[in-house]
């Protein structure tokens, strides 16, 4: 921080400086206030309602107290598992291609496409998958929801994989090739292995992002008040359930919405903190 002696400066300029600094600090406070307001409000309203019943029971009919979001938690798990099965392999493959074989103009186009896909509003993706999968199959399904979320994971995983692979020094690849290891084995078992912690970070970030998405699930998974273990049927999902309850007129459901929000935010913040922690430690170790 380069601070200069400003005693020779006019009062106007000094007060402008002071005003600007104060405004900047005030803005920071203003921006962080909602963060704390949300987290604290969540804690207060949600912590009370998260109990064993909440985590293990399915919703009760309107008017009856109790019940929970167990089916939504399970459904989210199912949908996210399908999403990962789609998003992770395709993202890693694309990232490997760009990093190891991507020295042509076409590669820039692919990177641009990744940004495009990243920028498409999630509801538009939901609409498209609705047309492609739901209408074709004539019913909502966890599979459709998983496909929609999986597609959203691809760009994040792809960019993270590419970045991490590019950070592996060329000497490592040469050492492996020099031992007579074939090119593809070098890429997977040496290069990718060296970049593993970074790639996993990217996957977890993508996961945390899609875990909270609601809009694409509105027309794909649709939601379900009951247990559902088949991937070809409408399935409950945590964000969906929160939404349905939040806009309902029932107090009991509002409480459950807060509880659900609490579970969701714990999952997401937990994932992000783990990522940050692992990233700061694992990086220096892996690529020393």
């Amino acid at each position, binding site marked *: 921080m380069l601070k200069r002696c400003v005693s020779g400066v006019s009062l106007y300029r000094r007060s402008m400086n002071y005003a600007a600094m104060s405004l900047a600090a005030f803005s920071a406070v203003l921006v962080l206030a909602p963060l704390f307001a949300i987290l604290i409000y969540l804690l207060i309203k949600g912590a009370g309602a998260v109990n064993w019943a909440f985590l293990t029971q399915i919703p009760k009919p309107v008017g009856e107290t109790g019940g929970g979001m167990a089916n939504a938690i399970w459904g989210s798990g199912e949908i996210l598992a399908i999403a990962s099965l789609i998003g992770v392999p395709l993202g890693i493959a694309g990232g490997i291609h760009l990093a190891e074989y991507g020295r042509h103009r076409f590669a820039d186009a692919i990177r641009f496409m990744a940004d495009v896909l990243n920028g498409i509003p999630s509801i538009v993706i939901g609409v498209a998958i609705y047309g492609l999968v739901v209408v074709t199959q004539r019913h909502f399904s966890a599979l459709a929801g998983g496909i929609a979320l999986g597609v959203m994971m691809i760009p994040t995983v792809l960019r993270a994989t590419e970045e991490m692979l590019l950070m592996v020094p060329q*000497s*490592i690849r*040469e050492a492996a090739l020099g031992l*007579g290891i074939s090119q593809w084995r070098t890429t997977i078992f040496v290069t990718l292995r060296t970049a593993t912690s970074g790639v996993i970070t990217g996957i977890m970030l993508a996961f945390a992002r899609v875990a909270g998405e609601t809009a694409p699930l509105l027309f794909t998974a649709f939601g379900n008040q009951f247990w559902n273990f088949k991937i070809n049927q409408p399935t409950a999902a945590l964000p969906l359930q929160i939404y349905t309850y939040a806009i309902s007129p029932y107090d009991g459901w509002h409480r459950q919405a807060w509880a659900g929000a609490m579970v969701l935010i714990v999952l997401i913040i937990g994932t992000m903190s783990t990522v940050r922690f692992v990233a700061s430690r694992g990086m220096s170790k*892996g690529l*020393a």
Partner: protein
Amino acid sequence: MGVNIDVCDLRAWFGPAEVLHGVSMHVRSNAVTAIIGPSGCGKSTFIRCLNRMHETVPTARVQGSVNIGGFNAYNGIPAVDVRRRVGMVFQKPNPFPTMSIYDNVAAGLKLNGFHRRRDLDEVVERSLRMAALWDEVKDVLKNKSGASLSGGQQQRLCIARALAVQPEVLLMDEPASALDPISTAKIEDLIYQLKERFTVVIVTHNMQQAARVADSTAFFLMGDLIEYDKTEKVFTAPADRRTEDYITGRFG
């Protein structure tokens, strides 16, 4: 056991630039051959052509023949096979950072399909002994990562790793230039002993090193092989004026 290498009219390009102009030489088995010359003379390119590492660069091209122990390295044989028989140690030690010492040495074997645990243990131990590293690391084989060793130890680890796949030729590209004098001395001892079993070709910019360890020395200049003879002769009675100029420090 080591094998002879016959290089015949070897040319190499990086894109349009020709960096090796028709080099021909016969490298004797079970001997250390040193390649010396100023920076940019093509010595690294030359040895990288011997194990087909040169072609990993996208715009690289090679012409001519390299005959290693009777088989033509460039004639339709997969590069992978050539590289298994010709090991390489690089200038800057490059152990695999996320693997343990054991896994580093065993990497060449494991990734080529060799998984028998008992045999792997044996090979790892023998390779580390040959590289004079066994005593220092035998207790921490699986606990320490390859990258946590000192520079000299890392280079010996890389040598052990290269030896584990049982090559017949060992190429070394300035193996001690990034190391301190004591580690350098250890590596030079190693080289002197390794020639009993392997054919060793070492690139070095340190003439004293060449004089110490090598049986024959080749002097390269701007992509041409200027002189190639017994080390003693090259350093005391060089036949070419340019060799003499380089050795006496007039340039390079």
